[in-house]
């Protein structure tokens, strides 16, 4: 369209194309120097936003990794405390069984009571364990308050039901603590529905050898009272509920179950008139109470048959309570194990996520060096060509021939 060019124009056009080539070359050089294809968000706005997203994700995953590590160490601490507790409980069980043997004398029972006392202190020490931050493991939210204190044979709890959670993935929290009440105070009592105890004033040798409850069990405190007003009378029993209402009665036969309101208690031995067996419907019992009660009975024992029966009742009750405590402990231990497993799985998931995010980040912002270097070479050639043609064409002038 234009067949006339001004001299200034040819000069400027030639120069402009050289400058343009130089700018392209400079860009490639910068990309190669930084190793990134995104030099500013404007180069690729959607990639820039992706980079922000991915970097946030990476920062989060890193944080979750730290949280998971901490969660694992806390749970490991709890796990080791729980397994120690398990060992102590097994030893207490052995001692309880041992104390019920016919070979025991009041002196040996006292020795066992002394050891049980030490075991109780050991349990207390476990219950008051601390973590590396000087916080109590089993005091719930009141992590600076010592959870358990002992006065005589009474152990009291100052903590609460609080449970600490850590976030190990977005929206996924794992508990790293269990409260002292959950571990030590909440085991089910006795057979799971009720516990029993023989009245301390009993003069006979009645021993409870078994108990059970079915679904129709009506929760209440019951008294089983044995009646034999005259030695010639038949030995009978009467069962009263919490409001002193008679709910069952019958003739006592050693080894037969006494049933009332869905509960069955098997009593053996020879109860005396007015002997009482209490059915305590409190559904949970602290493991400290279990041990303390056993200690009390062992310490008070003498070599009478009545005392033997009291020991037998206490041991029987303590053993079922200990079984419940071990069940409860196992439940907590399983729970901790599951949590540790969850942390492992989540860490694996996090690691995979981290890897794929890093790959994505690299895809978005990192330079393809092979492509960039070949581009650089091409641009160098183009620049040289532009420079050469510029010099050649600018050299031409009609004035040279005048």
């Amino acid at each position, binding site marked *: 369209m234009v067949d006339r060019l*001004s001299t200034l*124009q040819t000069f400027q056009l030639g120069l402009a194309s050289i400058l343009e080539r130089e700018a392209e070359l400079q860009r490639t050089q910068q990309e190669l120097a930084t190793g990134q294809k995104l030099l500013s968000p*404007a180069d690729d706005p959607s990639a820039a936003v992706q980079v922000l997203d991915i970097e*946030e994700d990476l920062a989060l995953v890193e944080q979750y990794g730290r949280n998971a590590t901490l969660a694992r160490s806390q749970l490991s601490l709890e796990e080791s405390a729980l397994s120690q507790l398990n060992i102590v409980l097994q030893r207490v069980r052995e001692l309880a069984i041992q104390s019920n043997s016919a070979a025991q004398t009041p002196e040996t029972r006292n020795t066992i009571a002394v050891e049980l006392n030490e075991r109780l202190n050991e349990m207390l020490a476990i219950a008051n364990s601390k973590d590396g931050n000087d916080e109590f493991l089993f005091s719930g939210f009141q992590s600076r308050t010592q959870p358990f204190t002992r006065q005589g044979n009474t152990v009291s709890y100052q903590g609460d039901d609080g449970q600490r959670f850590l976030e190990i993935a977005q929206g996924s929290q794992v508990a790293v603590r269990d409260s002292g009440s959950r571990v030590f105070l909440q085991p089910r009592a006795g057979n799971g529905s009720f516990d029993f105890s023989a009245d301390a004033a009993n003069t006979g040798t009645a021993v409870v050898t078994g108990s059970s409850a079915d679904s129709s069990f009506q929760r209440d405190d019951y008294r089983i009272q044995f009646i034999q007003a005259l030695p010639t009378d038949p030995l009978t029993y009467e069962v009263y509920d919490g409001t002193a209402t008679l709910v069952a009665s019958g003739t006592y036969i050693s080894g037969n179950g006494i049933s009332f309101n869905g509960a069955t208690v098997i009593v053996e031995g020879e109860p005396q008139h007015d002997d009482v067996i209490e059915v305590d419907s409190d559904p949970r019992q602290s493991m400290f109470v279990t041990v303390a009660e056993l200690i009390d009975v062992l310490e008070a024992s003498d070599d009478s048959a009545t005392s033997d029966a009291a020991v037998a009742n206490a041991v029987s009750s303590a053993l079922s309570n200990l079984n419940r405590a071990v069940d409860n402990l196992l439940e907590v231990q399983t729970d901790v194990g599951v949590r540790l497993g969850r942390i492992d799985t989540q860490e694996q998931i996090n690691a995979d996520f981290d890897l794929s995010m890093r790959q994505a980040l690299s895809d978005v912002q990192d330079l393809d060096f092979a492509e960039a270097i070949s581009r650089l070479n091409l641009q160098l050639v183009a620049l040289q060509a532009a420079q050469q043609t510029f010099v050649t064409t600018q050299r031409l002038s009609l004035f040279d021939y005048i």
Partner: protein
Amino acid sequence: MSDIFNIGTSALTSLQRAITTTGHNIANANTEGYSRQRVDFATLPAQISGAGFLGSGVTITSISRNYDAFLAEDVRARTASAFNASTGADLASRIDGILANPDVGLGPALDAFFAAVQDVSNNPASVPERLVMVREAEVLADRFQYFDDRFRQLDRQITLQVEDTVRDINSLATNIASLNQQIVSETVRAGGQPPNDLLDQREQQLNALAEKVGINSVTVDQGAVNVFLGSGQALVIGSEVSSLETFSDPFDVGRIAVGISGLALQSDISRFLRGGELGALLDARSTITDAGRNQLGVVATGVATFVNAQNRLGLDLYGNAGGDIFSPLSPSVIPRISNTGSATVAASFADVGALTGDSYELSYDGTTYTLSNTGTGASVTGAGPNFSVDGVDITVTGTPAAGDAFLISPVAQAGSLFAVQISDPRGIAAAAPVRSASSLSNGGTGVLTDLTVTDVTGLPLATDITLTFNPDALGAGVPGYDVSGFAAGPIAYDPATDNGAGIEISINGMSFRLNGTPQAGDSFVLENNADGGGDNRNGLALAALQTAPLLFNGTASFQDAYATLVADVAVQTRQARSIADTEDALLQQAISSRDSVQGVNLDEEAANLIRLQQAYQAAARVIQIGDEIFETLLNATGR
């Protein structure tokens, strides 16, 4: 005989001038804006002889420019667009470049702050983690201020540049007016011949003016040019100039507006000034700095408000109710300087999640108020005095005068006012104010879980609240929990239907979930979380704010909202760069077209020189021949 001398002389004279003009062209080959000059030859009037008309030589009718008004106009229009685009791209790039730097980005600061929050939740009772969180909060505040500063710095640079540009425009307008005057008088003096070099000079000035602002020009009698600004506002009429001036914005003394000087009532004509650098500078204030600060402000307001609100729902390490971590932010209200009424306007946030980043102008015409969005232009009218818009409550007190107006910028200042208020790290509320406990004598499997606090007005609890399961709580056979310690009726809960999914209950600002199969008499206690330093429930809730979609009506997290800002600036910059490239190409094309007509080609001039030299030699030869003829005649007659 004299004819031949006259013809020869006329040719010599004319050709000499033509050679001079060619020399002038060669000399000005590199002069910017120079139009190649051309000599127009014409025959002298012929003499009548018996044989007919006898030629009497050559003359020059005019020395004119190779000039095409259409192409010149095109260059001017393209200049205004190209300079507008490149200035816009330059301004956008400055912000883009700042956002590009990962070391100063807001994203890493947000990540670091919330990582510190997580660390506090990991160790709620430990002070060093809390100290780190306060430090990270300070870094975050620094980062907000840094970005806000960059926007404000750009705003200040724009203000200075606007002032410079207005000065340039006024001086160019004055030059054009004085050139107009010279051109008219020279044209008259030269009997209508064009003063080519002056015309070129004026063309240059017009192009320089087009670089600064978009103009329309109209050529009138005797070569003068009238110049109008975009909207039709006259800048130069002949030799008269109406200059521009800058004055303070009626809402913001720190910001300037542009108007015509010498008028009694200052009127802002900024929005009519399109094109050129000035147009780009004025645009950049609304599209880059205001928009950027507002978007940043939404993030800042969001972080401060939501983090504060969550912290207030917790208990600090002393066991007291949590306070603000960041200084609370509120909308800024600026009355127009010219307001005469006594009204004041107060604005507050009703819902930070609904903020859009826009600003609003509330004006009063004597009877009704108009509340208009300065970004979208949407407006509502009403009798007042209460308005509610996009999460902001506005209340007018006092009596405004007709014509009074107020500018409500909910978040414009948020970035600069974002600051850490908490100084004692123990003040971070990682614990929740209440906890639940299940009674140790519970025989059933009933549980109370997920205790959260949504409102602390009724806290701390005056007495513990106890929920006791009662199979006949709501009448015989209708089970539920009796509530004691708080005035509330029994809570219906039927294990037969509710066990499994559980039910969500809210009382006294606390919500929790009941589940499982409780036995009669099983109970739960809600109590104050005394000494609960090891509790991290509120800390987890604080940490969860990082990824929660809280902003822009529940569609964006803090990071998302910041990413939107980065994306907006990036897209704008990219667009501006691409427009600038296109406009530059169009300008170069227009210049090429113009230069192909008016530029000097040295080869052409060389060829012309040869041609003119040859003609000159021939003309000299004519005179020599004439002389020889005359000599011959003299010799013949002188004998």
